[in-house]
């Protein structure tokens, strides 16, 4: 995607809360923040699933771990975003390091199953944390404190912080994908045996990629805890992992905007359909089916094709 399009999208994203405010529809600002946060989480998953070719079915563990870091810290009176958000990233990254160090020794279906197993293990551990509400979770009294006159309690301010995080994550992701590291990770996805045979310790590169994705997803988790002012074990439950996977596949594997498009389409569809039927997931499923059948490269792939610039080599 080119620079002009990036700027137009950014301008729309910046203008959105102002328009919503003018129309007195502040609910949509909160909803849009949710989309931005899921976009961050899905983008982090795209890093391993799309670029790295590692089909992880346990990404909710990092999302939930980040959220619980903020929640638990708040229970103990630590409210500063400058402490709890980096903490969420570090804890999730460490968790990804441990989980990755075990899971990345397996391949294919085994990798999918063992990442799922780890995430479910985390889910049950959190479920058993009676000190932190067990299955009830934790109600946060307030959002994290940033200071410098930035008040996250204001939904519009919070939206802009989420937007800032998403833009930063997308930029970092693009740099990373186009740098030496991204070149290695994508080549491992194409032909791991050969990467080994030309001298790359592929396991280590995959692990680093896994840890980065885990850390970024932890930050998304910290944001979602703030957005809903509530954390509970469901954040770590497998449907969240599945939803993130659907977002990435729907949006476009190994496309920079894949996670963003997927998060937007999935959450928007859900919001659009759910007032009319309790079977909203069924219709979302049908949409997904159509996309997978007719647009194997996801919506981002479809857009690239329409723009007639389908690159020979996807590098974001």
């Amino acid at each position, binding site marked *: 995607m080119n620079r002009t399009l990036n700027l137009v999208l950014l301008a729309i994203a910046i203008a959105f809360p102002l328009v919503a405010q003018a129309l007195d529809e502040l609910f949509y600002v909160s909803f849009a923040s949710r989309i931005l946060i899921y976009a961050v989480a899905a983008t982090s998953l795209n890093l391993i699933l799309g670029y790295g070719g590692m089909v992880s079915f346990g990404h909710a563990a990092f999302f939930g771990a980040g959220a619980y870091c903020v929640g638990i810290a708040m229970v103990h009176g630590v409210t500063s975003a400058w402490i709890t958000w980096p903490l969420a990233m570090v804890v999730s990254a460490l968790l990804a390091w441990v989980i990755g160090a075990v899971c990345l020794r397996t391949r294919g279906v085994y990798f999918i199953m063992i990442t799922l197993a780890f995430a479910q293990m985390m889910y049950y551990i959190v479920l058993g944390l009676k000190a932190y509400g067990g299955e009830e979770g934790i109600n946060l009294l307030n959002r994290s404190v940033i200071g410098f006159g930035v008040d996250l309690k204001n939904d519009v301010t919070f939206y802009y912080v989420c937007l800032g995080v998403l833009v930063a994550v997308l930029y970092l992701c693009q740099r990373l994908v186009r740098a030496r590291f991204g070149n290695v990770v994508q080549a491992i996805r194409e032909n791991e045996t*050969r*990467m*080994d*045979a030309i*001298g790359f*310790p592929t396991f280590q*590169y995959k692990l680093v990629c896994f840890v980065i994705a885990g850390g970024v997803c932890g930050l998304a988790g910290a944001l979602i805890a703030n957005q809903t002012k509530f954390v509970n074990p469901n954040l770590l439950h497998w449907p969240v992992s599945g939803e993130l996977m659907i977002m990435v596949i729907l949006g476009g594997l190994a496309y920079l905007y894949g996670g963003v498009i997927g998060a937007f389409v999935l959450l928007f569809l859900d919001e659009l359909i759910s007032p009319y039927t309790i079977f909203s997931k069924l219709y979302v499923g049908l949409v997904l089916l159509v996309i997978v059948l007719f647009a194997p490269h996801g919506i981002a792939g479809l857009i690239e094709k329409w723009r007639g610039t389908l690159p020979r080599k996807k590098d974001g």
Partner: protein
Amino acid sequence: MAKPVLEVLGLTKRFGGLVATDAVTFDVVPGEIHALIGPNGAGKTTLVHQLSGAVAADAGSIRFNGADITVMPTHDRVRAGLARSYQITSIFRRLTVVDNIVLAVQARNGTSLSFWRPIKSESALYDEARAIAKDVGLAGREEIVSGFLAHGEQRQLEVGLALATKPLCVMLDEPMAGMGPEESERMIPLISGLRATRSVLLIEHDMDAVFRLADRISVLVSGRIISTGTPAAIRASDEVRRAYLGDETVHG
């Protein structure tokens, strides 16, 4: 003869009841092309898999450049200077020729834990990759997506990827597999020229090529090396003739 760069001692591999590699002992000295021949199913590729680290040996040892590498992982062997090419072409089919080779150049040039600088701006990597593409006869084809190359060209790239790691010793597993006579003729001087800078373990079915290229030949039959010697000695050996050459038509 010079001190060997690669020394294989009593290497053994069993798959259930089948002894795929049976106490194989041989060496490769610097600057030689050592050919490994044998009928189908003799265990040539299994042996290469063990030398490259893809398959663990059950017994025996592998020494390379003075160090024991018997249990070393593949990527470390490559970094130590022992590289291989594959019998079944294993390239990055969605990448261009130059992007394929850049990966191998990147592997031995500094860290790849670099997250910021675009790789396209590292012109030194690309210059070197283009030079290697030229060396293996792919000049002018650098920007072609490798999956679209002709079979012979893909084989050249296959060898190019192994050579791009700058190995002391390179193991070429049937580099001419599936090549027509013309394509083979292009590959022969390429392999012959490697002698100047590195040693080669050549596994090849094309006997004509083997006898033209090899300084020494080892004959592998049913997992055992039955004879090692100069091409003339191998051709004259009754044992080899009985076990192997006699069964197939030998040209030259």
